[in-house]
């Protein structure tokens, strides 16, 4: 079986600065991969390169045997790659229900959607989803009235509604309480298997809770890869994190 996602020697640079330099990463179907590394290691840029936000200058990115290296973002999304950004981004002027309806869409063309009402397809499923993330009573509220935690949950729900095969998460627990972090970990473990996830995360407690395989990035490439116990013992990783109190203090 070939891998779901394969990045081969990918380079991305921003006006001369090499954010990603020779990244090789292979992710199998159904895996939950954590991507960690010190600040500036190129983790977010790696996700950007996959979903088309940043263009790779060299190398190739294969997804289900499609070479998506130079594809437009919306076409990559249509292949089944979803993205959650570091700063929570939901549609603030739309209600929670409308937010979910934007995310939940099988047909994406202008004219197809012109003949469909606001409340056409499977409202049931969306309500169940809202219940899952604890937003059932907020369906009619505009998203701007939600608290920070609720916004994070809404965004997670949007990704589930989108039903992407490969979900790219950038720091999903930023700004959450430990209880919320724990709840998020539960959600991720539920998604694991059905969806493939790549999660960029700083919170090692969270990584321990969800991670199978961890890839450590440093200076734009993969430094080490393996189970959490192996990673914590790896001398090269320790060196990369030197000054920030080792990996557990990151």
């Amino acid at each position, binding site marked *: 079986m070939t891998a779901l996602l394969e990045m081969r020697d990918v380079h991305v640079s921003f006006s001369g600065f090499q954010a990603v330099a020779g990244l090789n990463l292979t992710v199998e179907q159904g895996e939950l991969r954590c991507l960690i590394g010190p600040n500036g290691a190129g983790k977010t840029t790696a996700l950007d390169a996959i979903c088309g936000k940043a263009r790779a200058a060299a190398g190739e990115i294969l997804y289900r045997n499609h070479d998506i290296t130079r594809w437009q*973002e919306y076409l990559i999304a249509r292949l089944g790659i979803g993205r959650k950004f*570091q700063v929570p981004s939901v549609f603030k002027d*739309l209600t929670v229900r*409308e937010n979910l309806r*934007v995310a939940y869409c099988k047909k994406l063309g*202008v004219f197809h*959607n012109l003949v469909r009402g606001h409340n056409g397809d499977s409202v049931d499923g969306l309500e169940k989803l809202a219940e899952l993330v604890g937003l059932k009573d907020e369906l009619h509220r505009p998203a701007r009235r939600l608290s920070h*935690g609720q916004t994070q949950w809404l965004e997670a729900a949007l990704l589930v509604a989108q039903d992407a095969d490969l979900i790219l998460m950038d*720091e999903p627990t930023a*700004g959450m309480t430990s209880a919320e972090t724990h709840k998020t970990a539960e959600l991720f473990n539920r998604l694991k298997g059905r969806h493939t996830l790549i999660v960029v995360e700083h919170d090692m407690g969270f990584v321990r809770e969800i991670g199978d395989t961890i890839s450590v990035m440093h200076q734009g490439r993969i430094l080490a890869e393996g189970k959490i116990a192996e990673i914590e013992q790896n001398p090269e990783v320790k060196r990369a994190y030197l000054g920030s109190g080792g990996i557990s203090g990151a």
Partner: protein
Amino acid sequence: MKPSNYARWRLAGYLLFCVVIMIFPLILNNDYLLNKYMRYLVFGILSAALSFSWGYTGILNLGQAVSFGLGSYAMAMALKLRTIPIQTGAKGLPDFMVWNNVKTLPWFWEPFHSYAFAIFAGVAAPMLLALLLGWFMFRGRITGVFVAIITLAMLVVVNLLIIDQQKYTGGFNGITDLTTLKLFGITFDAYSSNTYYLIAGTLCVVLLGGLAITQTKTGLILQAIRDDENRVRYFGYDVAAYQNFAFTVSAGIAGLAGMLYTLVMEFASPTFLAVPLSLSIVIWCAVGGRGSLIGAALGAILVTGVQGNLSESPTFLDTWMLVMGAIFIAVVLFLPKGLISLIDIAVEALNRRRNRAHGGQSKRPTMNMNDVALQGSKPMREV
């Protein structure tokens, strides 16, 4: 209020407005005033069109008057070819062409012998132009203030082109001395109630049709694009196609308004696609409420109405511009969502009062678990 109720009340409001403008000529028995109100209604259509692209999709089109002007000229060209003034040349060559030593009718004037073509062109030409411009802008990811600048530049270019090509367009004078439109045996005179009903009917169709579009999934995606177009892109929607759809539909409606304006004014002029008018549309839209089609239409009718009355009244002869300016500033400062938001504010106040009358227990917002949790949350590490 529950969303389904809200939608019902809104539809009722739209229908009420349609009924009011349709029975208006029955109350008013003054042809001069009727002509004036027709103008206001045409501006209402124009403003509603901008609300569709600006208020719903977030595309601030400062060149909306291009579409308006093109529609206006299309209608004027068709009407001009049917006039028989004294100085017409061979085969009914328009008088201004005779004065400019044009011997034969230019090829692009030929098809305007047909009303059907003219009416088609009055909508299709602005749409085509918008589609083309939109294709370059939206594929190139141009957004926000840059869209405003490009559309404004487009307006100036088209305006100069029309003024410069006097031989074919009548230049500064525009196209004047037009016949009255006669379709299916009905005469659309500038002072007749027939024309009024045509315009009011068009406004109703535009408002209700526009409202219907905003209720579809496409309408929802357009609003999502206004909020955060990048996020929409990562859900797999071709954002440029949606933006271009809104931009083009808006241009088509503006073209339609332009054609009607020619009927009301009995001429077409380069001032119809000049910068002052184009910027006025933005003001009407903002004053009425750009997020609402009917709000934008009402804004246009109110502003142009007040403007007309003030400038004609002896008391405000010298100061009416100041008064208008003060009104704009007040609305922008105190009602950023426009005059139409007064309704929302009033409904909310009414609800609050009703709740208080019921002992204040029923609808008081309760402290939410997540809100409580947030207070103890750890700070964001990276933004």
